[in-house]
């Protein structure tokens, strides 16, 4: 199914409650605009390749959102306002399920570069 893939980085210095509060808020915003979060993948704490807002780490989250342009627009404008969001990136994908499966594979089996060189 066509949709959006939205990656965003939360501030690791924010408390657990604040982070969960943000996630609840985002969900409400997406659903309020007729969108649906089909999958929510938590990538977890990662080291950033460069400092963002003086933070060296970030909590990565991935949303797969049903094809609803208003929803992604509203979500991005909220990201812009939130101090607790360090960075975000939304891309349109043709097949959300395939993208999600690929991501889970990457997370459990590691980089594709190994499987490629084996062939």
């Amino acid at each position, binding site marked *: 199914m066509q949709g959006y893939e939205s*990656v965003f*980085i939360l501030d690791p210095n924010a408390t657990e409650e604040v982070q969960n509060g943000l996630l609840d808020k985002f969900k409400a915003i997406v659903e309020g605009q007729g969108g649906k979060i089909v999958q929510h993948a938590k990538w977890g704490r*990662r080291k*950033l*390749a*460069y400092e*963002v807002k003086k933070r060296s780490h*970030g909590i*990565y989250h991935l949303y797969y959102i049903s094809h609803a342009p208003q929803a992604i627009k509203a979500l991005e404008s909220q990201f812009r306002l939130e101090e607790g969001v*360090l*960075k*975000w*990136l939304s*891309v349109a994908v043709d097949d959300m399920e395939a993208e999600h499966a*690929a*991501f889970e594979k*990457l997370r459990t089996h*590691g*980089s*594709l*570069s*190994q499987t*490629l*060189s084996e*062939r």
Partner: protein
Amino acid sequence: MARGKATAARRRGLGNRIIIPRRKTSELNKLKAIPYKDVELLKNYLTERGRILPRRISGNTARTQRQLREAIKRARNIALLSFSEGYVSQD
């Protein structure tokens, strides 16, 4: 054709060596799409300084190189890859 080249090379003092260009290929060409979240994979196509390798080195097709470029830019945007490496601030 190859003969012509060989004689030309000999005239330039390159001896009897016939240089046959070897076509390089990249593993990436086999992929349907290049995942921007696969940092380890993308790192193979960057220099130590974090610049994108030219395709004459990596052997990517034009199409693959375009997709790779987008993937790397996306990864940089969300801090999975750096824009440049090895720069030491002077202050």
